[in-house]
């Protein structure tokens, strides 16, 4: 096919030069680089409930993957943490905050689903009960290593030492009590194959995981849009006092559920229409994004990602089978 001999020589030489150059400069750049520290700021949102709000960007080396919302809830046996962030270092920062809030430290963890920004801090809490839906544990065991490779690639040194630790307690009941505080369990799906929403019974605060986003474009790598919509409908009937969405600001009005549903319906309709017109993925990615979505965090990148995730299946369904 090609002259492999000269090609290999060239390629190898180039990569070797690269290595040598790196060795020359690496000590200098390490010294110049600021230490990677997560500056987590819990904000009290209800009686005994704090929220740590992530940025609404995609994973970058600047944000260290701190793009997710975590919740801390006070109980008489210690703090309950919902979702543990993207890395070992993030989990350590959470543990430190919990230790400052309660002399008992951390009592238990919930993971809402198996995406890496929501559970890669679990390592720090491996000796505590880490509650999740059974499907979340299965998915974490299946996808954890692949996610880990990609997170190290995207976040580099922020990830140092991180190993995916799946949840260790499958939830099969409709409530979970930790100390005297009771949590209502909603076992749902759609964002992934297993999505947990948790209601803090005392304050009516609903923690939705990534079933709800606010002012940040929803992500769809494991999504089933139809089931996701049904899950949102169910969460709407909960009439929560307030919502901590998976990404984006604290929601006192339920706007996160309305917006997420609206966005998912727009995505599905846009992709179906494009398939009916024979658009390629690149052309579809150039579509105009409606005004009401254009200012969401991670736009238009997240729309582009959704086209990659969802378009191949949608267009196969829409384009007719040709006669042989």
């Amino acid at each position, binding site marked *: 096919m090609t*002259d492999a001999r000269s090609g290999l020589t060239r390629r190898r*030489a180039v990569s070797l030069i690269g290595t040598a150059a790196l060795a020359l400069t690496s000590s200098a750049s390490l010294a110049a680089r600021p230490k990677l520290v997560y500056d987590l700021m819990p904000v009290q949102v209800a009686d005994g409930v704090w929220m740590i709000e992530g940025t609404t960007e995609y994973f970058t080396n600047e944000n260290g993957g701190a793009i997710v919302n975590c919740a801390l809830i006070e109980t008489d046996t210690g703090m309950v943490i919902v979702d543990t962030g993207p890395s070992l270092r993030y989990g350590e920062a959470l543990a430190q905050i919990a230790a400052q809030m309660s002399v008992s430290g951390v009592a238990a963890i919930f993971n809402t689903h198996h995406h890496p920004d929501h559970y890669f801090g679990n390592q720090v809490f491996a000796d505590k009960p880490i509650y999740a839906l059974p499907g979340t544990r299965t998915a974490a065991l299946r996808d954890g290593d692949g996610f880990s490779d990609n997170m190290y690639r995207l976040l580099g040194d922020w990830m140092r030492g991180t190993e995916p630790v799946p949840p260790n307690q499958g939830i099969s009941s409709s409530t979970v009590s930790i100390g005297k505080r009771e949590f209502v369990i909603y076992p749902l799906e759609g964002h992934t194959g297993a999505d947990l929403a948790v209601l803090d019974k005392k304050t009516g605060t609903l923690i939705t995981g990534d079933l709800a986003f606010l002012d940040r474009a929803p992500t769809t790598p494991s999504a089933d849009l139809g089931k996701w919509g049904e899950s949102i409908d169910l969460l709407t009937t909960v009439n929560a006092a307030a919502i901590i969405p998976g990404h984006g600001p604290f929601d006192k009005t339920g706007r996160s559920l309305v917006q997420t549903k609206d966005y998912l319906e727009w995505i599905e309709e846009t992709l179906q229409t494009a398939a009916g017109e024979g658009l390629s993925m690149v052309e579809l990615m150039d579509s105009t994004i409606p005004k009401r979505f254009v200012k969401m965090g991670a736009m238009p990148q997240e729309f582009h990602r959704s086209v990659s995730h969802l378009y191949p299946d949608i267009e196969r369904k829409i384009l007719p089978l040709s006669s042989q």
Partner: protein
Amino acid sequence: MKHLIAALALFAFTSQASALDEAKVKLDDPFKTGIWSYHQKNILGDPENIRFDDRVVVKAPASAEDSLNVPVLVDATAIPDVKRIVLFVDYGPIPKILTYWPENAQPKLAFRFKIDQATPVRAAVETHSGSWHVGHTHIDAAGGGCTVPALAYASDDWEEHLGKVNGSVWPGRGRMRMIVDHPMDTGLAGDIPLFIIEKLQVDDLSGKKLAHIELHEPVNEDPAFTLFFEDGGLSDKVRVHGRDNNGNLVDAIVGSPKTQ
């Protein structure tokens, strides 16, 4: 100091290696991949008349979300008299993706491919008079696309779908879209041997050739193409036919949404 000597020694070594790879026309590669001149010689045949040309537009996402399905749109309609478009990557176990021969179509094609690592994607356009015009873009990727088994094998009915075509023509908009069911095994995954469609020809029903595509291993599983035509260049129905390397035939009539 030790590093410096090593680097100098390597530098001398590469200069020698470059001499071996020297292409007839030396181009200043904006991506400086170090392997460009090698592909210029070996994939394009070291043409005498070649340049990088902004008129060849290659559009793709900056980062590959799904390494098995990276979408690309190449548009060489600004180049007159195009004979073929050769698409390849600088870095990957199998650089050549496909060659498009837009016989009576516009020199413009949308396709998807499997990416193995971050790399420039090049579209080298040859005209009938023998000049080459190269456009490109860079795609970042987590990689692994060429060394992962086809997803088809997760279902047990893939053989029934083999060679089936989903698609439509839109004559008024000069557009044809087709998805051809095929695992497109690269031969690099596990013990699965090479199994790919090698050629797809699109004709009108009178047998006039409209365009054809030579496919290589990196084309995605269930290859998906959009072809583009001038006004009046496309009728209500076209025939797509071709074969894979095991002799399985593809042969389908693709109609417009109205005629189906």
